[in-house]
Structure formats: structure tokens, C-alpha cells
């Protein structure tokens, strides 16, 4: 197997693993956050709007780690720096 196809294969596998493992943790975290917010809303319906806005902000914060994984996956697929190295060889 020459280096070109090796880099391509490993990039695709790496991007898939990156997305899968990277989104796992943030999915669990978002689930916990949403469950806690729903519980709080059920206990205190008067504060629902405040809890909801806080929940959206915290969900976006938690989601950031999954988005970093997504960006890394895009980087390996579309802007892989090792392609140029392999082409120039």
C-alpha cells in the first residue's frame, strides 16, 4: 500500500472515530443537563423561562466539545496537511 492511499484510509477512519467518540461525551452531558432542567421546570414552573434560557446557554457550551471534534473531522477530510506531503513525494 503506497503512502497516498494509506493516508486517505486512515483519514477517513480517523474522522469517523473522532466524530463518534467526540460526540459521545457531549451527548451524555446534554442529556443530563436537559433532564435536570426539566426537573427544575416541573418543580418551579414560575421560573421556567429563566431556567430555559440558562439551559440553552449551557447546552451550547456543552456542545462545543462535540463541535471541536466535528471541525477536526472536517480538517482531516477536506484540509488534511499530509496530502500535500504525499503528493509532493
Amino acid at each position, binding site marked *: 500500500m503506497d503512502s497516498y492511499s494509506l493516508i486517505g484510509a486512515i483519514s477517513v477512519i480517523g474522522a469517523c472515530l473522532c466524530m463518534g467518540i467526540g460526540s459521545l461525551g457531549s451527548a451524555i452531558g446534554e442529556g443530563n443537563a436537559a433532564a435536570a432542567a426539566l426537573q427544575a421546570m416541573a418543580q418551579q414552573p414560575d421560573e421556567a423561562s*429563566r431556567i430555559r434560557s440558562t439551559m*440553552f446557554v449551557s447546552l*451550547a457550551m456543552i*456542545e462545543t466539545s462535540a*463541535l471541536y471534534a*466535528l*471541525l477536526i473531522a*472536517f480538517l482531516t477530510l477536506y484540509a488534511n496537511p499530509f496530502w500535500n506531503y504525499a503528493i509532493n513525494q
Partner: protein
Amino acid sequence: MLSVDFSHWWDIPYLDRQIGIADFDHINLISWDNFHINVTIFNSWLVIALIVLLSWLVTRKLQTGEKVSRLQTVLEILVLWLQKEANETSGSRNNQYLGMAMGLFCFIMVANLLTFIPWFRPPTASLSTTMALAAIVFISIPYFAIKNAGIKGYLKKFIEPIPLMLPMNIFSEFFSVLAMGLRLFGNMLSGVMFASILSAFIPFVAPLTMQTLGLLTGSIQAYIFALLAIVYSSSVKEEIKPEIITN
């Protein structure tokens, strides 16, 4: 030499031209020697023009009383809602954060909602736009902090809770703003990319569901960007001196 080329404006993003994640920045519409106007800049101008035109049309003849035009009602709801959010989140009673938050919110909201037009590439799906928006927030943090608490109060934030945390605080100052830009970029990029990949497989009905989901995430991202801008800007508050009650 002036050259105008609009033929790539409505290419399906990422499929017709596989350049990379900085795709929109590489399609030049108007070129004049070394001065290029790419799709991101052009679409930003379209968004700005749309906001200005709509606001001008509505505020041209403002009405009071029982009968109010529909668009004026929409804008009033928007302004009052964001005013309430900004004042509740920052804890300040004067509307000092409203201008910045409203500008960011309107621009990002309109740009994200226009993804519903299939060939429109949202300017927020380009890293240069989101980083420029994050730079506004990065400048606004010391501005509001110095305005409210003075330069001493602003610098005091960096040595809290202990002076040993100084490098950490400086890093977090940079990375919290960097994360804002990356978050918006990642969300919009994944939305556009997913819709275009889906439209390559199933061109007719299936992309509609993803685009509807994109409207939801787009509006939530606009709200979150404005809210985080307020949260970061109001992190240094005016010191309220406890009043001594004398009888």
C-alpha cells in the same frame, strides 16, 4: 482590470467545488487587481442591506395607539424581548448592552434564516465572519469593564481569586471568545454541509427536514451568541458599595 463573475454564486456548497472548509472565501465574485470580493463578503452585504431596508421601511412611519402595523409589532416584540433578556442577564438597569446584542443577534439571525434559500451561502458558515463577530465581543469586554468598573476593576479580574491564576485567566479570556466564533462556525457549517450532502443523494423532499432543523439551530445559535456576548461583557460589574443605614 475589473472582472465580474457570478457564475459560481449558486454552486451547491462543498459538492460542486471541493476546496476545503474555507470554501466560501475562495470564490471571487468581483476582482479588481489584487482586490477581491468573495461570496462571504457579498452575502454579508446582502444580509446587511436586508436588515437596513426592513428597519427603514418599518420605522419610516411609526404608529402609536390601537392600530399598529404588523411589521412594527414584530420589531417591537423583538426589541422588548432582547431588552428584557439583556437587562436580566447582565443585571444592569440601563440598556447599555442592548445595542451590541441587538446588532449581533439581528445579523446572525437573518444570515442563518436565509439558509432556507437553497443557493444562499450564509456568511456565518465562514470562519472569517464568525471570527470577526467574536473580535467585536473581544473588544467589547474591556470596553464595558473599564466603563463600568474603571481600569483598576478590569485588571483586578485577572488576579482573582489568587494572583497565581493570572496565566489561566488570560488564556480563558482568549479562548472563551475563540470558542464563541468556532461554535457558530461549526454549527452553520455542519448545517449547510449536511443539507448539501443529503441533496446529492435524495434531491427533493429529504433536505427539507434538515433545512427546517437548520432554522431551529440557526435561531438558537443567534440567541446564544448574543447572550454569551452579554454574559462575557458584563463579567466585570460595578462595585456596589454597601450603604450604611443611619437612623
